């Protein structure tokens, strides 16, 4: 199959150089999050439809195994451990998946860190996937609903339904890392049904429908929609959930996107002059690469905090005192396909440190202080507030598309010890009182002296004695 892949590539000279480069680097790398991929696909016949995508995966070091959906021996776990690192669910031929792929099992799989890529087609969305989607707060359209767009359809495929939608790459926001924004004029062909997303912060759209797209029941008699199920940018074509443990579940509304047919298709938008090749191949690779954790993985290499103005202060002590000056450092790396590179905070964003006890007392930006070949160190210094307690240095950086960073390091902040207060004679305001004490003492001694040396006249004493 590798030969086949290479022959495919050879036929496309425009991409040859690019691919050879990537291929050489990918083939040697084992993916960071593990290489065991289960592709649940019905028949060998089907798999040939997606051979380019699957070959591409294999070429990147994944060990892809194809299994039919209802195979009895299929299991995601063995002895409580997952036996696959990633699962790709192709739409099943029959009603649903087997007992090994119930939504509960799939969620259990994600809980153990496995990634899932779900491909659906309008005619076949099994109940398991629907149930799973409900848990993820993704709204899937009913059976046979399809998404069409009368402005952004492919004119080449001559479908009267306008069901091959041409979507652009998502727009780049300066505040987030976006791993899906290729060239701006790329067109991604999509034939299937869009879905809607709930407001959960863990859900992220990977590919949003064009503004003029809508979804309707294709079984109705009308050639248009009376009551669109969803429309415009509220509708997503590809979206993902990154769970709290950073496992990723990606849901794609069109399995055709991943087919050889769409990879090789030439498309033309209404109004454009000449057909262009789809960007499906690159986009689908991006989707799979992100889902399987080749991109957007950020790791914390080290965390250091210490007293700022003491040269030999111990690193990461358990206890500070109020009003200490401390420096906090965090070293971050990002995984880029096959190696760790320094993590960069997008220009419109800021990595922040919270110094928190119940609520943040400080929230200060962490600025890059040094960069090595594979990591960036972010640093900040501040004065500990005048409040004792168990504080935490917390870096809570949760952004779409990248690993959630939520690092919490508890330290105890104690009060001044009895001998750490400023001495009284160092406080100028106290001099008055110190002088007062001195005067009182001297006065008393003087009085005593006066009393002792000014003995009363002897005669008077005699008088007293007689009394």
């Amino acid at each position, binding site marked *: 199959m590798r030969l086949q892949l290479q022959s495919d590539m050879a036929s496309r000279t425009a991409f040859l150089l690019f691919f050879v480069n990537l291929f050489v680097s990918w083939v040697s790398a084992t993916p960071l999050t593990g290489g065991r991929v289960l592709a649940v696909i019905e028949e060998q016949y089907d798999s040939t439809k997606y051979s380019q995508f699957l070959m591409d995966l294999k070429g990147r070091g994944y060990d892809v195994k194809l299994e039919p959906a209802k195979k009895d021996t299929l299991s995601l776990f063995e002895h409580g451990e997952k036996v696959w690192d990633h699962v790709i669910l192709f739409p099943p031929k029959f009603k649903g998946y087997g007992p090994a792929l119930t939504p509960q099992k799939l969620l259990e799989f994600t809980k153990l860190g496995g990634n899932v890529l779900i491909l659906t087609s309008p005619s076949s969305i099994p109940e398991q996937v629907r149930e799973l989607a409900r848990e993820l707060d993704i709204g899937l*359209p009913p059976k046979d609903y399809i998404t069409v767009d009368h402005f952004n359809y492919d004119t080449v495929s001559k479908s009267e339904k306008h069901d091959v939608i041409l979507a652009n790459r998502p727009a780049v926001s300066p505040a987030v890392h976006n791993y899906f924004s290729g060239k701006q004029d790329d067109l991604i062909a999509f034939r299937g049904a869009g879905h809607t997303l709930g407001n959960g912060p863990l859900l992220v759209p990977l590919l949003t429908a064009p503004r003029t797209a809508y979804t309707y029941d294709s079984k109705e008699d009308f050639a248009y929609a009376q009551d669109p199920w969803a429309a415009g940018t*509220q509708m997503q074509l590809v979206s993902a959930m990154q769970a709290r443990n950073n496992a990723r579940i990606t849901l794609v509304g069109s399995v055709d996107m991943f087919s050889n047919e769409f990879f090789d298709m030439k498309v033309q938008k209404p109004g454009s002059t000449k057909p262009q090749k789809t960007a499906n191949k690159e986009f689908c690779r991006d989707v799979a690469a992100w889902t399987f954790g080749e991109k957007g993985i950020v790791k914390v290499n080290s965390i250091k905090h210490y007293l700022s103005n003491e040269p030999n202060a111990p690193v990461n002590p358990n206890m500070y005192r109020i009003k200490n000056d401390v420096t906090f450092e965090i070293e971050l790396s990002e995984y880029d396909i096959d190696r760790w590179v320094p993590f960069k905070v997008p220009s419109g964003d800021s990595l922040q440190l919270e110094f928190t006890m119940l609520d943040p007392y400080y929230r200060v930006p962490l600025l890059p202080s040094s960069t090595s070949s594979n990591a960036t160190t972010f640093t900040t210094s501040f004065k500990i507030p005048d409040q004792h307690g168990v504080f935490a240095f917390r870096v809570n950086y949760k952004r779409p598309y990248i690993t959630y960073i939520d690092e919490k390091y508890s330290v105890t902040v104690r009060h001044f010890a009895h001998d750490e207060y400023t001495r009284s004679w160092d406080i100028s305001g106290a001099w008055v009182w110190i002088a007062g004490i001195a005067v009182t003492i001297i006065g008393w001694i003087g009085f005593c002296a006066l009393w002792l040396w000014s003995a009363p006249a002897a005669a008077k004493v005699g008088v007293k004695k007689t009394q």
Partner: protein
Amino acid sequence: MSSLEVLLKDESTRNIRRLLKVVILITIAGAAVSSRLFSVILDPWFNFRASKYLVKNGFYNFWDWFDDRTWHPLGRVTGGTLYPGLMVTSGAIYHILRMLSMPVDIRNICVLLAPAFSGLTALATYLFTKEMKDESAGLLAAAFIGIAPGYISRSVAGSYDNEAIAIFLLMFTFYLWIKALKDGSAFWGALCALFYFYMVAAWGGYVFITNMIPLHAFVLVLMGRYSPRLYVAYTSWFALGTLGSMQIPFVGFLPIRSSEHMAALGVFGLLQIVGFVEFVRDQVPSRQFKTLLKALIFIVFALSSAVLVLLTVSGVIAPWSGRFYSLWDTGYAKIHIPIIASVSEHQPTAWPAFFFDLEMLIWLFPAGIYMCFSTLQDQHVFVIIYGIMASYFAGVMVRLMLTLTPVVCVSAAIALSNILDVYLSIKTPAAPTAGAPSVNERKEKKPRVNILSAGKDSIVGVYSKASKIAVIAAFSIYLFVFVLHCTWVTSNAYSSPSVVLASRMPDGSQHIIDDYREAYYWLRKNTPDDAKIMSWWDYGYQIGGMADRTTLVDNNTWNNTHIATVGKAMSAREEVAYPILRQHDVDYVLVIFGGLLGYSGDDINKFLWMIRIAEGVWPDEVKERDFFTPHGEYRVDDGATDTMKNSLMYKMSYYNYQSLFPAGQAQDRVRNAKLPAVGPTLSILDEAFTSENWIVRIYKVKDLDNLGRDHLSAAAFDAGKKKSKRTKANKGSQRKLRVV
């Protein structure tokens, strides 16, 4: 005067008497110690922990100790918020014993400190009573205090609490005060100040001394008994004692800033004025003096009240603290500071408790007070005032029975010693003639003309031997029964530590219920070292000490809001409680449930206090009324309100409890209620541990759901329940849009 007394008063037998006295005192101390050894379990654990810290890290580290294992995440400035006297005492004993090359474990010192100090208390009471009457009364008082249950209740072996040493210090400070007053000695006044300082270091009840001594001085001045002796004793005590007390970080500037201490300051000022007036009286003829006095009194009164008002208004002097108000108005705490009212020992005393704790002493007590009136020297005024104040306080709070016990012992000893003096006298008095020498009066002072002591010169003695024998026999029986009672009370009521419950099996053998220690041991062995345990504050010290885990709140109830937070989490619905648990990093929640065993001191019975305390801080979110049925009943069965059934405490208590019984038969044996057939469900917590008799139940707080769902729906999903199909519901209706 009894013949024995006559014999013992003889010069030649002085050494025998002295030896006898020492032997008696040692025997009393021995009895006091041994009656406190019925069962030995260390409690409260915090003091023990603090002592260990002191011994391990030294005094200065103890002084600056910041404890991050309690009151998470606030921590506690322990060194500055405790009375260090107890720990420093045992630390000192520890080091002295080591110096004498007797390496004793600090734990043993802590356990035996209270009995040892009870022996010293007997000695102090002896000295105090001796100042009141004579040595025989002193010995009686020492014997009484040695075994009086009212004092034993706080000083059994292992009861390592501040009161263990505080009662000794209280009595000894009073003794020194009386001594200083009698002699007009600055030396004894300074000693009194020294022990007052020790008392301040040891117990918050030092305020009792701070107010008793000024009150005594004030009454003496009012009675026209001002003397230079009083002036010297009081001023030396006040000046040195106040300076000393300010050295304790926890007290700090309170002695000059809080209302509780203003009486002492005021009397100090008054004595200066009175002293000055006395001085002027010596110098000025009496008619001018009267005018002068009037002017002076007016000016001083106007000035001092103006200053006091000004200082109070401007906030320099703190108003009376809530605890103090609750002493005057027993309903005050219940309304304003439920945290104080929630402690059982802060409840008003039930009258049988007086008899239970003091037995025959309680009816000898008024007699003794009467005897004090009949002699009424300066020191007797003290006993009278002390008796009145302590009786009142003991009536207001069970806990203050402790301060009443010594004075009851003293005055009962005075009364009994008088009786014995009269009836043990073998000599039959001579024929009644007017002016016969009184038998039980010391003739130090000329008797004053007083209604109460009007008949004292007519005391002649008892003629009949039979009546003597009858009275003595009766009192011997009383004393014997008193000892029996004390032993019985001590062994049954006051020697059962709260950590271990004892019960009787049908065959009469003792059955130990050790659920607490089982659970604490489980926590110690099965949870990470830095796990945070949330429980009601009653168990904070035990968890900190026995399980060695961080707690949110503990028995040192310094932060009402934090306790209210725990109360809110316990009384709220799961989804309200969960953010609170997360915010406070809680890993485990511990509840006490007595329903299976019929153990009434469990959390459901304490629950109303949690609600009240939480309501005090969040009146809009927690409402006590919601936990009562419309008829005002507090129920846990089918008739319980929804708020009750949905509260975290209810759910944690009864979770899975139904599984112990046949369907529909679940029974709560504390509240005698038949529980609902379907038990509560928990979605934010997992049951982690339940002790043998279900007394301690520990729950683990679940992590946030991996997919960002709420726990209820996640649990429903795991249980295989299907969600209603949202797609259909959405169709045609208003769609929920995603915020882009």
